[in-house]
């Protein structure tokens, strides 16, 4: 699968897609492939605030637990409850139905600390 060029990536394998001052956040295909079948996603409540690169939740596959780190800081305005109920959505497509959070950006300049798709592909190709 190709890495979408419309969004930014962190080296913790999360993505952020910005529309206006809202960033939709999820994990990458690379992260999904490494995890295998996702069976549990623990997400924060809406209204919570988080800082860039802070842990915001946990994702578990059959075999392993991984922490989720937010690629941007701000206020959580929406949580994908569909993923909490049906974690396999993350495997179906982590870039669309498998999104995790929508965050109102605290500081849009934080996006400069993230990679574009090409840089992220280079990172995961290593």
């Amino acid at each position, binding site marked *: 699968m190709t890495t979408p060029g419309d969004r930014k990536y962190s080296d913790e394998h999360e993505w952020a897609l910005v529309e206006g001052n809202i960033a939709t956040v999820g994990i990458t295909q690379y992260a999904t492939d490494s995890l*295998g*079948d996702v069976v*549990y996603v623990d997400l924060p409540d809406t209204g919570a605030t988080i800082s860039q690169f802070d842990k915001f939740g946990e994702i578990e*596959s*059959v*075999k392993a*637990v991984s922490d989720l780190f937010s690629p941007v800081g701000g206020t959580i305005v929406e949580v994908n409850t569909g993923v909490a109920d049906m974690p396999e959505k993350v495997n179906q497509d982590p870039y669309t139905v498998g999104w995790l959070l929508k965050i109102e950006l605290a500081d849009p300049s934080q996006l400069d600390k993230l990679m574009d798709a090409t840089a992220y592909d280079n990172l995961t190709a290593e």
Partner: protein
Amino acid sequence: MADEQALRQTPLHRTHVAAGARMVSFGGWDMPVQYADGIIAEVRAVRQSAGMFDVSHMARYQFVGPDAVEFLDRMIAADVAGLQPGRARYHVICNEQGGIIDDAIVYRITDDQCLLVANAGNADAVLDWLLPSAQQNGGVFFADLTQDVAMIAVQGPEAVAIVDRLCPLPASSVRPFRVRRAEIAGVPSRIARTGYTGEDGFEIMPPADRAVELWRALEAEGVKPAGLGARDVLRLEAGLMLHGNDMTVENNPYEAGLDRFTYIDTPGYVAGGALRAIRDAGTPRVMTAFLMVGRGIPRHGLAVMKDGERVGAVTSGTHSPTLDANIGMGYVDRGLSAEGTRFEIDVRGRLVEAEVVPLPFYSRKRNQT
């Protein structure tokens, strides 16, 4: 543990890699943890039709000679003398203090020939336990067959019918915990009605140089290759222990709930005295199975809590795709081990409620309609 260069490979290694398996280090071997479709699809295949596992990494030790049975009965808690030739028994191997070195299956092939199948990770420990005494006994001849013989487990509700199509015997005439020689897809093998998934099926031991041929024949019959990840889920659903996870040499078979697989009455059994004393004293904690009531997956090493006190530890846990529930087991204070008792699992700082249930979580008689 050995570095990556030194990992051993089974005769099916190339077949796994070519099939797109993800390989991991396990017990000193480079083994498939899952194939392209993933663990859940592999679990489903085994529960609903048939799957197969390369278990050639398990140690296969042969003991032959006039003293072989008597020797094994001095060293392992299996009552081999009480086994008819052609039968197998699951049992524990304990040290002089009653600590579990491994759990294993012993196959009595003939009156004076036995095959012991031990966990890959304990291959050396089992050998260290058995070999020095075997070598001192002129009536026991030891051979390590691990390299020369492969082992493929075919498991699932359709496994027996499928193997029957490849085996004129037929394979279905081999009853549970029996072993015999048979040709499967033209490959002369030893076939045993045993497994580690809670399903019916066989463990087939072909010569190493014909393992790929047998694997392909089974695949052509619709048997789905499955890896260690699925195997771990399946064995846990079936309530089967994994040595190294659920017990170590620090545990005894009574706290592990393996009383039924610990035969201590053979005169001269070296661990008999220690095990009898442990059994009679009773163990403060006991292996306890539980279902998560709250949201969260129990994992090895997490604490079991009750009223703010640590009352045990999780040894195995996973999401069960078959039951669509989060399941676990671990050593818990005996007073909290009765069915229906509630306690909490400390899931990385979050206390999540769990309820004690009987083992196994899944049984094919109960769960299949």
